[in-house]
């Protein structure tokens, strides 16, 4: 179980995360939603240890980072490295012996091409494949469905569901509510660096309605569209 207690993050004087308390259990899928700038990515970076923070994050008395697969919103790629080598690189970092990478290419990516020439969606799929093959116990997926085609969307959704059976912890952020409703056991709503609501699966429909009313409201009327 991952336990987060009183997690706060400041950039200079600007407080980005404000005393967040969260618990993530094994075999459960968690969604984090919120507007742009709500603090989702910063929260993920703090959990993964890429940022310094105030507060406490613990994971079964072991180093969380070494069991964590982190999918960044915009994965970074070297200029002259192929898809296959990218997967190999990430496997090497965890001392995982990989054989027959082509057989594990579930998204049918052109693995012998330079990864930097891939489209946004292909890059995302490659980065996801690489962290899946790292055999992690915890996954943080920041916008995994962004720019990804509908077929791959279905595959990713099924992978996430499979993780539940495998007792993994999965934390996802997405701006597409339906993908979260399909996969998550619990959704946390973030605003201005705080968790303002935790919603269980049975209340997802109400949450979507609430979010729509809260976010959309009568904003569009201001445009006076004709």
């Amino acid at each position, binding site marked *: 179980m991952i336990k987060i207690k009183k997690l706060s993050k400041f950039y200079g004087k600007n407080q980005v995360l404000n005393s967040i308390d969260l618990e993530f259990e094994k075999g459960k899928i968690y969604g984090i939603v919120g507007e742009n700038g709500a603090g989702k990515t910063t929260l993920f970076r703090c959990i*993964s*240890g*890429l940022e*310094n923070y105030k507060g406490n994050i613990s994971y079964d008395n072991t*180093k969380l*980072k*070494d069991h964590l697969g*982190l999918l*960044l919103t915009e*994965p*970074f790629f*070297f*200029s*002259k*490295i*192929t898809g*296959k*080598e*990218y997967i*190999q*690189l*990430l496997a*090497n*970092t*965890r*001392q995982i012996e990989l054989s027959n990478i082509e057989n594990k290419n579930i998204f049918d990516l052109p693995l*012998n*091409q*330079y990864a930097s*020439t891939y489209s946004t969606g292909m890059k995302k799929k490659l980065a996801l494949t690489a962290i899946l093959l*790292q055999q992690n116990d915890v996954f943080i997926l920041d916008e995994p469905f962004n720019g990804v085609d509908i077929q791959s969307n279905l595959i990713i959704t099924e992978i996430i569901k499979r993780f539940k059976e495998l007792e993994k912890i999965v934390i996802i952020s997405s701006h597409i509510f339906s993908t979260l409703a399909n996969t998550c056991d619990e959704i946390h709503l973030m605003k201005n660096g705080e968790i303002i609501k935790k919603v269980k699966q049975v209340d997802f429909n109400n949450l979507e309605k609430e979010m729509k009313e809260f976010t959309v409201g009568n904003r569009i009327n201001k445009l006076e569209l004709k």
Partner: protein
Amino acid sequence: MIDFGLPLLIGYTLLPFVFVLLSNYLFEKTEFANYIYGLLAVSFVSKLSEPKRNDFLKSIFNKYNYKKLRILENIIYCLPFTLFLIYQKQFLFSVILNLCVTIIMLFNFSTNLNVTIPTPFSKNPFEFTVGFRKTFYVFPIAYFLTYISVTVGNFNLGVFSMLLIGITCFSYYSKTENEYFVWNYNLSSKEFLLEKMKTCLTYFSILSLPIIITLGISFFNQIDILIVFIFLCYAYLTTIIFAKYSSFPNEMNMSKVILIGLSFMFPPILLIFIPLFYSQSIKKLNTILND
């Protein structure tokens, strides 16, 4: 503002002096300087011909303004070279150069080849995988120089060819990778640095082995000097790895670059730099690897 460890204002002031110094050096050293200088200028200007960039400009400006803008930016980009050619009284070359960069405006091309170049280092990315693809042409040149050194009996040329490989491998560690690729390692800072060192020294040894064996056999009486140079290469490669991670995740600052540059004049100083950079690297890596 500070970049590369230097205040920008000082950097911008120094830049023209460095340019003039290097240009002068080139014109003093070779009679073909005009041609080399022209090629340098054209390759520099050709960066502006990237298709994506030009598609963007075309979407903003109409045809006439686009052409005007492209001619102007190519000529401005090439201006330092033109001025130096005029200073060298190479009027014809400066006119030809400006004509060339004006014609280049008509073509949009990518300066990056996207053909996947095979590499023997695929299994252990990324430094040598990426580096080899960028500098693959250096190795046949180095091996050819070794062959010449043996045929003409010039040991120094042979050592130079090995140093050429050393410098090439050295350059693979000059750029800092994204912190994600360090964070991913489930090693301690010490283990991480040892792993990087092991990969680097092994691959350098593999690449320079044909030269070492050839020189060892052909110039057996000078093998002690050869061994000294091999160890110097190892020492410098170790230094650059430690220096790189001693500033991580930032780029190596200018003061470190200068220190390493000065050490080429007095290599024993590496005995101070290596442990110093090592301890700084451990500190920096501890924060990323949560050690």
